[in-house]
């Protein structure tokens, strides 16, 4: 078993290196599994190839706090403290970046943060219009005008109370 003193280096798609505690990195299931495969090897650099540095930094920030809070509030109160931090954490992230972050987190298989980001995206699009959502996710509308009009007509009530910012 790796002790918490161990460090590992995560390399972003741009080649930027991040040195993190093993306790933090092990929350990324894919990194953990890679490190287990290479146990005994002195090389502790894991390339994350497709994950941009800004997302690597976000993910590390989240789990660093996660690990710290968990240690500090072993007796209880961890969940509330984590919720507080998550709120603050999400405030700094641009809505457009949530999309990149969810893909990065999904790729690295980090369940706790995946849940947080999915919830944030859902909250963000909950009251948004269809047009906004297409643009946000870069989805091409493949309906004909008639088809779309018909679907809208069938569920007109679902289009009330939408804000288009």
């Amino acid at each position, binding site marked *: 078993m790796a002790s918490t003193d161990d460090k590992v280096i995560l390399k972003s798609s741009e080649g930027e290196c991040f040195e993190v505690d093993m306790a933090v990195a092990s929350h990324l299931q894919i990194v953990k599994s890679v490190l287990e495969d290479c146990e005994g090897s002195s090389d502790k650099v*894991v*390339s994350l*190839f*497709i994950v941009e540095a800004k997302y690597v930094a976000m993910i590390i920030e989240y789990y660093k706090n996660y690990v710290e809070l968990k240690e500090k509030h072993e007796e209880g109160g961890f969940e509330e403290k984590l919720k507080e931090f998550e709120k603050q954490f999400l405030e700094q992230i641009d809505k457009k970046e949530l999309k990149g972050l969810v893909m990065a987190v999904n790729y690295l298989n980090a369940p706790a943060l995946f849940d947080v980001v999915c*919830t944030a995206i859902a909250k963000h699009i*909950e009251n948004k219009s269809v047009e906004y959502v297409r643009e946000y996710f870069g989805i091409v509308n*493949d309906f004909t005008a008639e088809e*779309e009009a018909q679907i809208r007509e069938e*569920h007109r*009530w679902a289009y009330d109370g939408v804000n288009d910012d």
Partner: protein
Amino acid sequence: MDPPLKTTLSTVTSLCNCTKKQKLDQRQPNAISRSSADVKMKRMMSFEEEIPTDVFDDIFFRLPMKTLVRFRCVSKPWLRLITYSRFPYRLLNRQLCCDHSSTDCKHNEPIIIFSHNQRNSDGSGTKLFAIGGGYEEDSFRLAQGIEFSLFQGKDFEIMTNSCDGMLCLAIKEEKILVLWNPSTREHRALPLTTDSGICGGVCGLGFDSKTDDYKVVSVVGKQVYVFSLKRNSWRYIGESPYPLHMGIPANGYLYWGAGEITNSFANRIVCLDLSDDTFREVQLPSSNDLVQSVGVGQTTPEVGFYLLTWSGALFAYREQDQSVWMLKEVQERDTAVVMAGEEGTSATGVKHVWTKLMNIPQIPNSKRRQSARPPIYYKLYPKCFSKNGKLVMAVRGKRFILYDPKEKSYEEYIVRGLDRGRCQKAIACVESLISPNSIRGMNDID
């Protein structure tokens, strides 16, 4: 040498599936083939530019039904995912399996739908309202109208309890029966023969897991008819052993308050197995403590039960001591089939084990509370549990009580947002996207 593109893509897909599965299975050892770190990370490189579908699943799980209905017209793949795939079933399962008390629960409160006959200037017609359904418990205090354009301005009735977010409505006089999903407002008219009383006798809706089919039950006199949504036809299955109240689906069966039924409280409970169309008597919760409270030497008092369901389990409220019981275990055992005419035959059946959850204190009528006269206590109709485990109970008309079993406290309130008029049947319902017109079943493939 570069591998052919197709192989690379399929490897990526299988690896992606693998990581996803791992997450679900709490990581199985050796799920990923042992290869060198670099190769493994590199294989994942060409992952999609766009958000993969299974991630959309996770985002969609956290959206309100109204939003999901709206997003059907984003694109064809979204329409397919939201409406015609197994997503509605995955969503429903997730709601049922969710630990509602945990802070991680993202689901909304259940809804209670009731029909309301308005006595105002805009004329006659039954209206449907819902309370609950919001993220907060407060949503049980405010009624919101639900339009059902087909029945606009007409007098109709709620005929069944809900099953997976759907229920039956009928205009008895015109012999029109529909299966309706209040979350998506989609409906399907069910065919009826003109001369039978089937329409007026409809009193149950359940899911048959053996055939992945929803079934509607109608009792005409003693005769029981079952409608299969997949076959789109009615079938006579025999006679019912007792008079039946409204069936409530739970544990894969339809349970009924049966026997003598007064004010919706029944003195027997039976269950109908929709896979083999047989009724079985359900052993009642123990009345030992009831006998004690009545006094030794007296006979067991008459009991009255009212059934409700939550998270797929069945609960029985016993009126006499205001206790709530949960049907805990259903085990296979030899029991007698109580279907009339076939008495005495034995079949593999179910054993019913009840666990008492709570006793609700008597709640005095607030109008009498200030007066010197002895209090009158409310008759309680528990409808559903809130996410926090509070019991939502209908009392009378617009009057509801929210009972907190942990604190043993209650709050009485009058539902806002309703005009003058009479509240009729109130039934609890989960929100779901399952379409009455596209019954696929849990095991059907996408």
